[in-house]
């Protein structure tokens, strides 16, 4: 261990100042300079047994790429990451590093962990902006066709891996843009859509066919994809897209949105071209309440702020320590003046004579005994109600499994919450040749976990297709 390395502080990343950024939708963190990146990379101890890798769901060779950054071999660093993670520019920005790779970094024991996510983002951005991205080589065509349903991180990763192995891949996406939550959910100021578009263009370059506005289950069932369209295997990566509501009085009032609707209107329907013609309206509240404590809640609150809200209240039923959002987003939200009402839930929404939401009745909670998840259960405090005047409410308390696929696919096993049951190692479902992964299997999780699932399924699909081929060839020889 070099004592010098630990003496260097973790390099901060430049950001747009809060007062400036709430007036635009541009990205908040501005990334490292080359110098900063090299300095930060120099902090890494190049551990012989790197703990950090254990925290990464796709096992990026962290010391390997960090060493390359330190040496100034930035494009090589990006390629090193891409050996296991096809979307480093995305993951560097949105992974909850503090509970994944960076949590286990040994530097974090005594001081601050290496800024793995920021370095990952730096390397990927550098390679891209310098125009050094290489088109991945694809194996000779195998003649096998795979249908990928859903274009979120799970589907895109699975498609990329299979295309590289020479399979003929078609991605079917229900919406008019590819990218899943990365395009309709996560806002521009956190993940510029340009980055995603370039990743998707790369897929197209590899020969992957992309079909938008293709709602599988409606336009064609999985059975039809296999038996009529001749797909040899199917991967289902349809995400957790069914918004939950609180089931409290007044939730159908005007101005009450699910986070999915609010963010879809703001992101997808304004499709990167902020300020240019976009025809989908959104209620611009002056006083907005967001319910929830995850990334989705932070994104909604910060979007509402940028749409002109003077006051944004974020109500979360537990305490700050339990908030599932990325630490950086909580910090950014606070900087942007989002008011956190912790240990608080709305119990009723009230409206005016036009049916528009006008206030929320809020109730304080206190933490009681631990529940099944081991977290202390919030219990209402009698008589603690107060009324908060609002004109928009955004419900960001989670999402469930969309039944479009399961309800139209006979024999596809789901669990009691409607998620598809699949083998964690291979993604295999109860139907041979049909695989699944990402949020539609695990429930709402993370981008990198969805990618990991897509990747494992791609490996299993490849093996399955090659076995099928061998057995048909063997039969042909007889």
């Amino acid at each position, binding site marked *: 261990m070099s004592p010098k390395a630990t003496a260097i502080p973790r390099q901060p990343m430049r950001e747009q100042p809060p007062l400036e950024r709430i007036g635009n939708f541009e990205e908040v963190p501005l990334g490292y300079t080359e110098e900063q990146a090299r300095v930060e990379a120099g902090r890494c101890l190049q551990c012989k047994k790197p703990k950090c890798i254990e925290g990464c769901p796709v096992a990026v060779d962290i010391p390997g790429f960090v060493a390359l950054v330190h040496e100034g071999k930035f494009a090589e660093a990006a390629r090193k990451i891409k050996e296991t993670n096809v979307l480093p520019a995305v993951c560097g920005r949105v992974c909850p590093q503090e509970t994944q790779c960076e949590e286990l970094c040994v530097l974090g024991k005594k001081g601050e962990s290496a800024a793995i996510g920021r370095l990952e983002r730096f390397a990927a951005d550098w390679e891209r902006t310098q125009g050094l991205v290489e088109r991945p080589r694809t194996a000779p065509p195998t003649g096998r066709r795979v249908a990928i349903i859903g274009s979120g991180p799970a589907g895109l990763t699975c498609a990329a891996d299979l295309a590289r192995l020479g399979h003929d891949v078609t991605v079917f996406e229900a919406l008019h843009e590819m990218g899943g939550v990365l395009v309709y959910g996560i806002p521009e100021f956190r993940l510029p859509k340009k980055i995603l578009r370039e990743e998707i263009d790369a897929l197209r370059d590899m020969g992957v066919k992309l079909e938008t506005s293709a709602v599988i289950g409606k336009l064609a069932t999985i059975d039809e994809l296999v038996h009529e369209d001749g797909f040899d295997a199917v991967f289902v990566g349809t995400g957790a897209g069914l918004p939950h509501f609180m089931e409290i009085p007044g939730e159908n009032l005007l101005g009450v949105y699910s986070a999915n609707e609010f963010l879809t209107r703001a992101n997808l329907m304004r499709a990167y071209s902020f300020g240019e013609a*976009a025809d*989908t309206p959104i209620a611009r509240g002056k006083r907005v309440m967001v319910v929830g404590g995850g990334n989705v809640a932070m994104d909604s609150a910060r979007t509402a702020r940028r749409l002109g809200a003077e006051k944004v209240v974020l109500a979360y039923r537990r305490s700050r320590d339990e908030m599932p959002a990325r630490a950086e987003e909580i910090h950014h939200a606070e900087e942007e003046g989002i008011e956190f009402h912790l240990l608080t839930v709305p119990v009723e929404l009230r409206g005016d004579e036009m049916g528009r939401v006008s206030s929320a009745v809020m109730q304080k909670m206190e933490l009681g005994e631990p529940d099944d998840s081991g977290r202390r259960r919030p219990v209402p405090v009698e008589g603690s109600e107060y009324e908060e005047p609002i004109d928009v409410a955004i419900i960001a308390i989670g999402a469930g499994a969309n039944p479009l696929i399961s309800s139209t696919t006979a024999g596809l096993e789901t669990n009691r919450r409607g998620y598809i049951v699949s083998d964690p190692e291979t993604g295999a479902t109860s139907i041979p040749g049909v695989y699944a992964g990402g949020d539609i299997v695990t429930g709402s999780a993370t981008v990198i976990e969805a990618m990991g699932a897509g990747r494992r399924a791609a490996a299993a699909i490849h093996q399955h297709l090659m076995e099928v081929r061998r057995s048909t060839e063997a039969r042909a020889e007889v």
Partner: protein
Amino acid sequence: MNEIIAKEEIAPDTYRYQIYHPRIAQKRKAGQFVIVRTHDGGERVPLTIVGSDLTAGTVTLIFQAVGHSTRELAQLGVGDRLLDLAGPLGQATHIENYGRACVIGGGYGTAPVLPIAAALGDAGNDLIGIIGARTKELVILEQELGDICSRLEVATDDGSYGHPGFVTDVLQALLDEGEPIAFVLAVGPSPMMRAVANLTKQRAIRTMVSLNPLMVDGTGMCGGCRVEVGGETKFACVDGPEFDGHQVNFDLLMKRQGTYKPEEQEAAAHGPHCRIGLDAAR
């Protein structure tokens, strides 16, 4: 794909398009709809699939240019392509032989009635049709429905054609005459559907209505289309769009349909390219 093969103005500001999309043409069932987008930055507009032609591989859409997005759609012509066409969405109509059934269409709601009437007819129902419009020139699909129904009545609000008054007046008269109607399907403006449902409720006649709340994705992802039916919240795009008319909370539906009225009006007042939600984003 998505090419407009034929366009016809069937009434003032009301258009019939035949659009090339063989797969939707083949898969669609009565009661289902599509979502269209005309250009980048455009809204996702839900429209009922009125029919399809399997040989030509086309679906038929009929719409009225009532606001910004439907007017943009009306600007297109033969040979143009819709930027996006997603479907068939929603649940297909439950079809059975009720014996004598009555189908009611109000205004451009008459268009969604046509495919359902055809399916009910195919299932052996004896159909009575009632179509209504504000005035004579807005009556649509009289011929097409006339071919399917054994009896077709027309009502106009201003009395310029057919019975003067509302479709409910005609329905009331039929019921008073003792027509043994076992099932009613009504599509049109919400107040009309509510009036029909109120009338049939007294006589306990099973009544389905097709709701048209505002929608975004149309796949069950956003919940923007939620409606209240029998005290429960449903997502019209995946659970509907048809529901039991006696259970629907029409008050809520009408309020929610008006969510963006102030924004739409303000935008219209500022000219075609100032759309709300944008100035804030700058």
